[in-house]
């Protein structure tokens, strides 16, 4: 089997996913194209050598529809011989794209590919693509569909995480993210996003609230009380988890991932492709895995996905130096650390989506890049990145510096 290596990665800064967000005027195709162009330009990439461009996108309709990957490659000025494919593994789409291209490299079916993702949540709102799972009564009913926030609150209820615990986690995420930015740890990966006249509209993560305190967070109302109590979803969750007496709603806008716009791209190739490009590989993709898990609690997949990837890599948790788990909700991270028995100082060391936001289709590629940059900065060898996923799934990838 051929090894697949990461040669480079870039990402856009994350803009607030609202009408006053800096990236709101940037179309998703422009956002994706600018990131693809930045990856090409900084690597001096001959795009005619690229076998595929695979981008994750979770709401692939409207402006993000019609295979945004192929059109973004064309629009970025990639050679017309480069095909494109949009993939959707919900919140892990960006990482799934990397794993998918890595698999083709490993199997010898391609030499070089770009993987990443894009989501302009301010322009194509979450859920805009509908879907049988949440909406079709004949499907939602038997599968006990509940919105993710209810699932996160269910995890907190089952595990006994208090509001203080989840808020404390969020405060720490903000603190770490602010420190990382101050220290310039994201500088290398950021591709500033420009408007139609070429001016930079955003060059740093816009969503952060450095200095957020426990008091600030305590003032926020739980976000999922209304759908839980008035929308009936608490009961649906309890029908699946009869051992729970009532859902305790602890998640707020302050301890859940932020809604943002963003895009990311990762250059993956064989050793041979690297030599041809005269690029040094930065890390080897050792193993990856995706799994399905119970869909009502939905967000507990990362541990099983991580264990599966570790097994494939013939590794154990003690072999991993640094961890990234997407901060979809604070309870997801707390459950993961408890489940995997991880110390907090090895997990999400530069903050995460609670502080900086979660541009659905792009996040998997972003957190992979964040992990690699930090492994280099700390001169660590191995890292594992994982995300929880809608409908009960998990994806994980293990990388090793070379």
């Amino acid at each position, binding site marked *: 089997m051929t090894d697949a290596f990461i040669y480079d990665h870039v990402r856009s800064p994350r803009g607030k996913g609202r009408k006053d967000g800096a990236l709101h005027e940037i179309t998703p195709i422009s956002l994706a194209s600018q990131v693809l162009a930045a990856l090409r330009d900084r690597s001096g990439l001959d795009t005619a050598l690229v076998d595929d461009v695979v981008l994750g996108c979770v709401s692939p309709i409207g402006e993000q529809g019609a295979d945004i990957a192929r059109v973004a490659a064309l629009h970025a000025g990639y050679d017309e011989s480069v095909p494109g494919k949009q993939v959707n593994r919900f919140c892990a789409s960006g990482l799934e794209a990397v794993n998918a291209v890595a698999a083709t490299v490993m199997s010898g079916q391609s030499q070089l590919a770009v993987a990443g993702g894009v989501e302009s949540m301010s322009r194509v709102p979450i859920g805009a693509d*509908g879907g049988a799972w949440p909406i079709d*009564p*004949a499907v*939602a*009913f038997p599968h006990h569909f509940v919105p993710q926030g209810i699932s996160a609150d269910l995890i907190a209820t089952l595990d006994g995480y208090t509001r203080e615990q989840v808020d404390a986690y969020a405060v720490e995420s903000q603190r770490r993210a602010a420190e990382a930015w101050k220290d310039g740890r994201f500088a290398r990966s950021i591709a500033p996003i420009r408007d139609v006249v070429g001016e930079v509209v955003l060059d740093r993560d816009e969503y952060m609230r450095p200095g957020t305190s426990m008091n600030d967070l305590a003032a926020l109302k739980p976000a999922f009380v209304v*759908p839980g109590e008035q*929308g*009936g979803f608490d009961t649906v969750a309890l029908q699946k988890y009869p051992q729970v007496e009532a859902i305790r709603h602890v998640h707020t806008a302050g301890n859940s991932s932020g809604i943002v716009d963003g895009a990311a791209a990762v250059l993956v190739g064989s050793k041979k492709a690297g030599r041809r490009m005269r690029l040094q590989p930065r890390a080897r993709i050792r193993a990856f895995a995706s799994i399905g898990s119970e869909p009502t609690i939905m967000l507990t997949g990362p541990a099983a996905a991580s264990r599966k990837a570790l097994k494939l890599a013939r590794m154990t948790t003690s072999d991993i130096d640094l961890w990234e788990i997407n901060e979809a909700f604070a309870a997801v991270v707390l459950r993961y650390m408890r489940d995997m028995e991880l110390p907090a100082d090895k997990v999400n060391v530069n903050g995460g989506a609670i502080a900086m936001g979660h541009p659905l289709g792009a996040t998997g590629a972003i957190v992979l890049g964040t992990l690699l940059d930090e492994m280099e900065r700390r001169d660590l060898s191995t890292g594992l990145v994982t995300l929880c996923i809608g409908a009960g799934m998990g994806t994980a990838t293990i990388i090793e510096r070379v």
Partner: protein
Amino acid sequence: MSNTIRFDVDADGIATLTIDIPGKSMNVITPEFQGDLASAVERIATDAGVKAAVITSAKRDFMAGADLKDLVTAYDRGIGAAEAARFSSELNKLYRKLETCGKPVVAAMNGLALGGGLELALACHYRVLADAPKVVVGLPEVKVGLLPGAGGTQRLSRLIGIANALPLMAEGKHVKPAEARKLGIVDEIVPPEQVIERARAWLATSPEPVAPWDRKGFKVPGGVGQQNPGIAQTFMVGTALAAKATWRNYPAPLAIMSAVYEGCQLPFDRGLAVESKYFGKLLSGPVARNLMRTLFVNKGLADSLARRPEGVPKVRVSRLGILGAGMMGAGIAYVSAQAGIDVVLLDTSLEAAEKGKGYSKKLLAKGVERGKVTQEQADALLAKIRTTTDYADLAGCELVVEAVFEQRDVKAGVTARAEAVIGKDTVFASNTSTLPITGLAQASKRPRQFIGIHFFSPVDKMPLVEIIMGKKTSPEALARALDFVGQLRKTPIVVDSPDLAKSS
């Protein structure tokens, strides 16, 4: 052709179809009616002398739904879902033929229209509804575990939008004329005597005989399917609320949602077919059969006091003794006074007895406030409840109900004290929910007159009353208890000791 519809054509070529199901006080859909309607529709469509039609009723009301008597047996006949679906699609096709007959048809709804009756009106091109106090329209099929299988899920959704139509069907709510007009279920509400006249007036405007959904470019108000965020939300939350409301035991609300969700994304006739299939799944299942059997067949039997022993003369309870003015005693006092019975409400202190009477005061004050009863009626009702601590006041009672603490010695004590004063024919009843009647009757000197009459809380809201026989309870006591429950217009179920069918 049988005789369920009178077909008259006037000089202007306007046919009047007057529905009058023989031997019924309310028009219901019977096989004969379906046959007659098919002939009538055929004649409207093909007779050149008929230019338009008015559909109305000879009864006080317009029409109710299907005759449940025909549906309740389907499951036990071993009907399959596909066969049950054909039952619905036959009526669907007939109504559809009416709707597409090429001539304007107006429903002159002279009174209440429910279920298949409203569905018939929905298949007309225009609806005029009598605006009178007792008139309602609705699709209550869900209450018997079914769905509106004569086009209701498809027409109502397309007429008033999914968000408005779904709750009406999923909860089986009916609405009054003003609300029906506001929602757009009917086109006009008019005084009852003008219904026909207004229906004809609409025909005089030379209307196009085409349903909105058969016009080019028709869009369901408020949208359909996935791509409309509001509608997506309606289904998302609606499904969760159905799971909550039914605790996953009743399939009909979900089937209604699926029929609407899937059907409204289809061409109209395909939508009707999907509706029929979901109807077939429900009719062929046990839940609809059980609901129809319990709520109509068996409840009807129970309400008619089917278990009452023959040959026992009917006795009206005119004076009722109640021992214990706690929550249950207070509730029994209220419903009994409401039924015109003089109540003696006894407790250990006058204060406690008055507190029990206070329950009636509170309910009546609320009723006066809401305009449901007049102050005079409230006062008269309260005057029927006499509070006391004196057992001698029980004299003259045809029935005494004890609702004291659930403790054998306490119950035995009040039984003895009451029996010391009441007449030899007076029946003594225990409202116990936990203690076997035969055992309690051991404290009685006259166990033949001892019976259980078990109310549920809150008494004024719960329609069911258990009557529990002790080993020695006489047919006369049973008859008395049943007569009493009948007076209260509640539903008695007779249980043989020592079991209670249902414990509060």
